[in-house]
């Protein structure tokens, strides 16, 4: 079993991993000395961050974080009927969320943004990121786009579907917390509402018609939020 630093980071923060994944990491740490040494070093680094007073991060680190978020955000959106959704993309999302959490913790000054109504988002072409968007908002867009792709191609098997939905829920929780930390209460509320719908979908007690209806509702809401996050507030009253 190969365990990445991203997974170890999530393990350190006791977040973003399922109970089973945490148990697997814990078991591997007990048996794999090299992994244990790697985790010890990583923990020491993360602990230093935890203990350090909040200070502005070096400009180059901020830029690297922004570049990382931008690269993830600018990945082309898959068409709904394209290749099946890859669950591992959520682990990228987890890594991104962890990176953001660290970024927030070490005191990177993020732009507080309360997006207002914006120009229409083209259906198939991802809108370019506005240059002033905060890392949190850009990360959230990645999460919402991942969720959209995941929901558009829900796997037919109950277990696979539940796993995917649980991954979306875990990511959603991370971003809900990040929204609270960024004083974006409006986004935190929307994400909590998403979780309720995701949990109903994951429960697996709905028939096919109910599942479709709920999924379409959630896709609509995801699209609306993505539209709002896509560009600065519009002042053009002729848009519609």
């Amino acid at each position, binding site marked *: 079993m190969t365990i990445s630093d991203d997974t170890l980071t999530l393990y350190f923060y006791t977040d973003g991993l399922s109970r089973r994944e945490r148990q697997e990491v814990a078991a591997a740490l007990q048996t794999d000395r090299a992994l244990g040494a790697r985790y010890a070093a990583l923990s020491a680094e993360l602990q230093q961050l935890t203990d350090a007073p909040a200070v502005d991060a070096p400009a180059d680190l901020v830029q690297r974080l922004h570049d990382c978020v931008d690269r993830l955000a600018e990945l082309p959106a898959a068409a*709904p009927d394209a290749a099946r959704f890859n669950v591992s993309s959520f682990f990228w999302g987890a890594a991104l969320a962890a990176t953001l959490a660290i970024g927030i913790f070490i005191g990177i000054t993020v732009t507080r943004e309360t997006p207002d*109504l*914006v*120009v*229409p*988002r*083209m*259906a*198939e072409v991802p809108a370019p990121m506005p240059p002033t968007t905060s890392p949190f908002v850009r990360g959230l867009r990645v999460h919402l786009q991942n969720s959209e792709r995941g929901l558009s191609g829900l796997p037919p098997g109950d277990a696979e579907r539940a796993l995917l939905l649980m991954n979306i829920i875990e990511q959603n929780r991370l971003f809900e917390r990040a929204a*609270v930390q960024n004083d974006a*209460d*409006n986004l*935190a*509320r*929307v994400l*909590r*509402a998403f979780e*309720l719908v995701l949990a109903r979908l994951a429960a697996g007690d709905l028939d096919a*018609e109910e599942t*479709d*209806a709920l999924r*379409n*509702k959630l896709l*609509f*809401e995801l*699209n*609306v*939020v993505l*539209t*709002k996050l896509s560009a600065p507030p*519009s*002042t*053009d*009253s002729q*848009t*519609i």
Partner: protein
Amino acid sequence: MPIRKLPLFCLLVLIPAAAVIAADGDVSDADALKIAALEALASAPPERALPRAKMILEGDNSDEVKESALFILSQIETPEAQALLLETARRSSGDLQIEAIHMLGIGGDATSLAALGAIYAAGDSEVRDAVLESYLIANDPQSILELAIAADVEADLEAAIEMLGAMGAKKELQALRENRGVSESLIEAYAISGDLESLRAIASDGSNPEVQVQAIEGLGILHHGDANALLLEIYRASDSADVREAALDGMFIANYDEGLLQLYRDSSDPTEKRALLEYLTMMDSDGIWDVIDSALQGEPQ
């Protein structure tokens, strides 16, 4: 909104999106186009979006289309939009009412959230659940606490407690213990919210053996080193068979095989050792094989 007034580029975007929605479920083509148009309202200024969403709500449209309009309203942070949501929550019924109640939670307006109390009081169980969910969405545990304190039906109290547990609202749950006393659902909520101190207090209080046992078992749900240590301490300190069994159950729930192995090694009572061995076997503990080998060889542990 008259479709003919849409700019051409907007229609070019909306029609493919509508086709995707229509092909995906049982939504009609006309409804799919309306929902796609509503999605585009997210990009409009509030003064443009609000009257159109209102027109959809008041018109002869399906619930799916109206629910989409409600979400658009939840994203418009004006008193008029919130008032329209509140009016829908008060006057509609069925799924639309439930959705409007949820959308008030997303809106997060304090006045609207306060008004949900009257809707809760007048509503059936589905409406009451939706109000609790709305407060969860708005992260307003205080309002749930007030409903719980005022609840005159046990099921309503339990639902409110369950919601507070899911929200991790320790302070409100502690206040509830003072107001409504300890119950099984409250103990579960303490466990779910990770409130070690409240569970410790109840687990140490032998005045009500039934809730004491529940609290001890609840410690196992915490999956926390301090809780595991407390379970070990409780087991060792108690003379009560029920309390000791609850402590073992707690360790089993916590998958705390190290504690059980420690108790096994410390024990010189064959009956107790057999009981502990059963737990370790059920847990499929890694340490069980050493214990079994030693027992088979007749070695003292």
